[in-house]
């Protein structure tokens, strides 16, 4: 893989001739008489190009498949986080009529008429509910107001639709609702992305905090980060000594201990979560044992709360901490520690100043690996956590699968993705990306 021959040879033909023998048996026997280095270099460059083409054509199938099933879908997530087609598609005349509106005064009769026509049409086509739901994201209560108007619009006969609508519901005379329609009818919107970090754009003040009752997403994100950070910390506290013990024991024991780490690593995530569900219940094994021991006569609440989430997540992610730590510690010579001790360092200070710094690459890799994986955790908190322990991933699932709010699901995913993207370069510097190097 690291054969740089191709590059070096093309740059210096003389060198090419020297290296030629080692490169191709068939070529060197066929062209034994050719001595001109530049001819050889030319042939070599051609062969090199052919090899490159073969290589690329071997990679191409996987590349194309991944582009289709991974690359483009990820781009679609980015797209859906700003995509906003509903209102402009379902209320096209209103969108057109309000294109030039500056939002300073209530729109004129024309906009009301356009809205009435759109609503009548959309009511018949049964699409109005989706537009109404979309408008409700802008101002709570807009949905019922739109649905009511759409139901009654046929019966509004007055000379002025504007007056009729306002008579039907006086909120139609409130400029805020028309501004909301105008906002919602843009083809692309930053509102989902802003909402994902508890911000919103208002007509006159620019960026402001979202309303109090909608300010929930940052709390979810900080909870997610906090849970992940605690899990990382616990994994270091338990994983570091384990990795150290494995790396410093005799080779025969090393193999056994290493397999003891690999067994949970290979066991299905769901099986391990199931084990904790069984163990941690109020009538579960741990509580039964504690009561039997007489430590307590009331069962401890250990499941459907934060405790259960930490226990199960640390259990699942601990091997991801131990494996990179072990692979680094394995290559650290014990001579350094002995040298430090012989120079008078106390064991603890020798550990801090000699051993610990050498394990930083493994430690960093393990921490970031565990952190990034736990950011996306969904199944385990769903099964052993309570309502307040759900992480951002469950919110994404709820938006995508529950309420079919693709924009919000995509926006939250983008926020998580940006956080991971910010973390990843650090991980890469420490670990070089070979997390699968298990042996």
């Amino acid at each position: 893989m690291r054969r740089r021959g191709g590059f070096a040879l093309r740059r210096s033909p003389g060198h090419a001739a020297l290296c030629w023998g080692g490169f191709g048996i068939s070529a060197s026997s066929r062209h034994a008489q050719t001595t001109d280095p530049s001819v050889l270099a030319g042939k070599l460059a051609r062969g090199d190009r052919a090899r490159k083409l073969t290589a690329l054509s071997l990679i191409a199938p996987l590349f194309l498949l991944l582009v289709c099933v991974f690359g483009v879908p990820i781009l679609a997530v980015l797209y859906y986080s700003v995509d906003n087609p509903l209102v402009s598609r379902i209320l096209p005349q209103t969108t057109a009529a309000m294109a030039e509106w500056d939002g300073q005064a209530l729109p004129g009769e024309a906009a009301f008429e356009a809205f009435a026509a759109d609503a009548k049409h959309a009511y018949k086509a049964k699409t109005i509910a989706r537009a109404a739901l979309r408008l409700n994201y802008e101002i709570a209560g807009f949905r019922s107001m739109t649905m009511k108007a759409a139901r009654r619009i046929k019966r509004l006969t007055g000379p002025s639709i504007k007056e009729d609508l306002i008579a039907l519901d006086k909120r139609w005379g409130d400029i805020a609702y028309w501004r909301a329609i105008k906002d919602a009818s843009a083809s692309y919107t930053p509102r989902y992305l802003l909402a994902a970090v508890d911000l919103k754009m208002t007509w006159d003040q620019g960026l402001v905090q979202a309303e109090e009752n909608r300010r929930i997403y940052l709390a979810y994100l900080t909870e997610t980060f906090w849970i992940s950070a605690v899990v990382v910390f616990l994994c270091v506290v338990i994983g570091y000594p384990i990795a150290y013990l494995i790396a410093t024991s005799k080779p025969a024991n090393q193999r056994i201990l290493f397999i003891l780490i690999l067994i949970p690593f290979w066991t299905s995530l769901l099986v391990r979560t199931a084990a904790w569900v069984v163990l941690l219940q109020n009538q579960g094994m741990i509580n039964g044992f504690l009561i039997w021991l007489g430590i307590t006569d009331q069962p401890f609440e250990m499941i459907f709360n934060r405790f259960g989430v930490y226990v199960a997540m640390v259990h699942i992610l601990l091997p991801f901490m131990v494996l990179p730590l072990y692979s680094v510690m394995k290559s650290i010579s014990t001579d350094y520690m002995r040298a430090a001790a012989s120079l008078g360092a106390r064991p603890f200070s020798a550990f801090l100043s000699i051993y610990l710094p050498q394990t930083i690459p493994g430690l960093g890799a393990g921490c970031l690996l565990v952190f990034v994986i736990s950011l996306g955790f969904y199944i385990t908190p769903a099964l052993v956590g309570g309502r307040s322990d759900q992480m951002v991933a469950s919110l994404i699932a709820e938006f995508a699968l529950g309420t079919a709010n693709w924009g919000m699901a995509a926006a939250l995913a983008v926020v998580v993705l940006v956080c991971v993207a910010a973390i990843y370069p650090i991980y890469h510097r420490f670990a070089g990306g070979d997390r699968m190097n298990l042996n």
Partner: protein
Amino acid sequence: MALPANATLGQQVGYVGLRVICAFGFLFLLLPTLIIMPISFSSGTFLNYPLPCLSLRWYEQVLQPHPWGFAFENSMIVACATTVIATVLGTLAAYGLTMAQFRFKGLLVGFLISPLVVPLVITALAAYFALAKVGLLGTHIGLILAHTALATPFVVITVTATLQGFDHTMVRAAESLGANPINAFFSVTLPLILPGVLSGAVFAFVTSFDEIVVALFVAGPGQFTMPRQLFADLRDQLNPSIIAVATLLTVASICLMALIEILQRRKDNG
């Protein structure tokens, strides 16, 4: 790492302390899955000791065609198809990656293994959007494609690692003796890198077989896989049949792990 005879008190405390923490850590890692296993042989419905009586009733229930037989069948279909696609394409790509140097290779490798570094829930959401657009939500093909994206990086990484020590001049030797490239690949390269390819395949299989998040997003009721059935049962009806399934899955994964270990040794020795 034995303690020297003249160890200070501090060293002794550290020595003992390290072992206590490690013992706790190992117990914590291994005990939960082991300690629940006997409950699967209980004749009662409680998930606790003591067992009223031993029985195989829960295993009998698990072997019924519905729901576990159906789930197992789905999981096998999806995992096998994923394994075949991922192993073939991943091996070809790994071979291509090691046979020549070209510009942007680092970026290309980064892209090929990027499904590993994106949080699973985002990959699942992306697959959900894409499959919904092309009408493949709730189909086996859709689930297989989504799982293939997750599984190929493992194949690429394991096969590339095996190919690091591979001497490409052997292929040229074969070609100089008249083998065409395809012939040379099957008769020279593949036998030599087979352990790596097989461990990649096992990784791909396990990735798909254990996968739950993507399955939750893109699978319909017709694609209920084992993990999905486990997830549903864990939420709705907790009884020892879940533990029977868990026990069977754990035994299976330990067998697969042993297989990987053997393959790795063969790779290291040969």
